């Protein structure tokens, strides 16, 4: 979503000036999420076509399948939004899976202990913010790579969660209005969770592109020293990114726990790596400073579209693992090439 400055003088166009006005197609391709957007559109169109041609073998267009997709995408999608923001600021968070599990469990625990629901939600977010603060503090105070810090806190939070929960899930039945607000249906098929995902994506977009904090994220992730010398408080920006990332993971936890009606600290294994894969697919630079929220949304849709196709074609599940592996490497190399070109 980098604004493209337009050249006042069209002569610069022919001279190949980088600020020259580009055609729409060029700008689309230069956009970090351009490639994956094309792939997603083609893949989706292919699925729709196949669903229309062979409605009995390939049940893509059925209501059940669409519902399933819209339920599956938001959880990992919301986590990826946070991971993406942090990645743009030049850091990683591998502990999101543990934060996801722990904060949702804390919410259920407090709720079952008799606290009102808003307080329980607040507890979930406070847990997330605390975890993010811990990650940020260790990383920034001691200057160690965030990928190691958050690897450590992944272990710590996960086993901390197991100790608290004693490995037993708690069932969670919130009031009717809350359940339907978070996980209900609109017009039959449209899932409320998916709308929440889109709403959170809009919030992330506003933070990243319409708020000074987002500017700082790009600056800090792109070139830390330059950001420092133009007067940006690097540590504060990164700390904000860490906390935001964990808050998004908490939000995903709240949504997920309300959907399945059972709170557990056990998150789906390797969620954190899937989130990184989604961000990479969405055109975020691993080194920070480049990326877009729309890319993350598209990446999340893409991952689940492929998973869905694999399920429906009744291929064994390992193809999804294969796909994630290939896409991470392929996506990163594509990004590297794109960076060189533009």
């Amino acid at each position, binding site marked *: 979503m980098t604004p493209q400055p337009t050249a006042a003088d069209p002569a610069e166009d022919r001279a190949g000036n980088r600020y020259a006005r580009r055609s729409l197609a060029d700008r689309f391709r230069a956009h970090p999420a351009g490639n994956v957007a094309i792939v997603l559109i083609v893949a989706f169109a292919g699925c729709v076509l196949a669903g229309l041609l062979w409605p009995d073998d390939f049940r893509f267009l059925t209501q059940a399948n669409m519902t399933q997709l819209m339920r599956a995408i938001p959880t990992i999608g919301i986590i990826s939004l946070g991971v993406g923001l942090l990645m743009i600021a030049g850091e990683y968070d591998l502990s999101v899976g543990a934060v996801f599990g722990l904060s949702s469990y804390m919410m259920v625990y407090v709720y079952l202990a008799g606290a009102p629901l808003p307080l329980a939600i607040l507890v979930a977010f406070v847990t997330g913010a605390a975890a993010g603060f811990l990650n940020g503090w260790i990383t920034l105070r*001691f200057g160690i790579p965030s990928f190691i810090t958050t690897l450590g806190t992944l*272990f710590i939070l996960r*086993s901390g969660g197991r100790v608290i929960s004693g490995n037993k899930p708690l069932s969670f039945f919130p009031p009717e209005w809350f359940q339907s607000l978070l996980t209900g249906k609109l017009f039959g098929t449209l899932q409320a969770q998916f709308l929440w995902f889109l709403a959170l994506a809009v919030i992330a977009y506003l933070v990243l592109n319409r708020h000074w904090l987002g500017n700082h994220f790009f600056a800090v992730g792109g070139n830390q020293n330059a950001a420092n010398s133009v007067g940006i408080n690097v540590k504060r920006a990164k700390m904000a990114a860490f906390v935001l990332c964990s808050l998004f993971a908490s939000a995903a936890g709240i949504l997920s726990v309300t959907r399945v009606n059972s709170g557990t600290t056990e998150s789906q294994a390797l969620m954190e790596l899937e989130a990184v894969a989604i961000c990479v697919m969405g055109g975020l630079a691993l080194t920070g400073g480049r990326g877009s929220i729309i890319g993350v949304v598209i990446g999340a849709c893409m991952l689940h579209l492929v998973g869905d196709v694999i399920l429906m074609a009744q291929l064994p599940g390992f193809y999804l693992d294969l796909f994630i592996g290939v896409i991470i490497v392929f996506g*990163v190399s594509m990004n590297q090439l794109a960076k060189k070109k533009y």
Partner: protein
Amino acid sequence: LLFAYGASVDEVAWAEARRSVGIFRQPNHLRRSATTMSEAQNDQPAATSASAGRYTQMTFWTRLRRHPTTNVAVLYTLLFGTCLIVSLLFPASLHFLEAGNLNVLAQQVPVIAILAVGAGMLMIAGEFDLSVAGVYTLAPYLMAMALNKWGLPLLPALALAILVGLAVGLINGLVTIRLGVPSFIATLGMMFFLRGIVRFVSISSVTGQPDQISLNPGETFANLVSGRILGGIQAQLFWLAVFALLAGLILNRHVLGNHIFAAGGDREAARKSGIAVDRVKVVTFMICSVYAVIAGVIQATRINTITPAQTLTGLELQAIASAVIGGVYLFGGRGTVLGMVLGAALIVTVENVLILMRFPGEYMPAFIGALVILSVIINTSFGSRISRPRGSL
């Protein structure tokens, strides 16, 4: 057995301690001149050498304190000592010193340690490998398939396993170097990829689900790898000594080791002084994967079965954790084989003691996590202290 265990580790320890003069590995000619220089300064007042450059003679204690292995060695000695004393005093409540338990340690430490040595060498070269658990599972699995289903003799099957390791390492290296993908991401991709492959090859024709396989390499091989050899030593310990020594020789006595340290320490400087950094890194990736194959084969021979779920147990993180706890510098260029082995021993011993004390198993990952962060903090602050220019140099 305790003595056997102590002896083999001590042997490596002394060899290492004798070998490691400076903290920074320098090309041999530099190292030699540094020694002569420091010898010449030996009779200078202590004040001079304290404020002088990094090639001067430090006192024994300073050198020991700054040696990357010291922290973990002290830590491990303390842990082992405490366990010994406690289990001697209260033999009824802590069954640490029993033959059965020490046996378990002697069987488990080498597997993690060999993984850690491979991963640690790669970390010295400045790269990570997150795909070791995949190789660790896939290679023995294919070896077992070659033996059971395709009727290959033992040696070709073993060669096949090693080949798998070489191939995976080569791909990891080429993707990292040629495509410019950070190794942590390239091998993350490989991790998922190998998990898929393992599930693919392990699908049973009967149930259609991933299934375990049994490895029957024959009595001779099994005894040689996981039995008792050389008069009662647990064979795994012997193989650990062999492969740790081999790694130590490569790192400290072979030109490749010099290049590994150089490539990890300062990539540009290494390139400009004529080292083929890319080739060195690819070779180190291959060494790392082959070490993972060796660890996998040793483990599979002992427990006789290989399950596809092995890829999910976080072995790659344990290997990195061992190396980091053992003093390998996270940004490359610094580390010792002894440290990696001790780091692995520390992790496995802590796990063992926690199990013996009937702690809930849930505490274990938290402990590893805290240990990783702490040791990285210590190593990093330590690294920045010594690499800062001091005095006139």
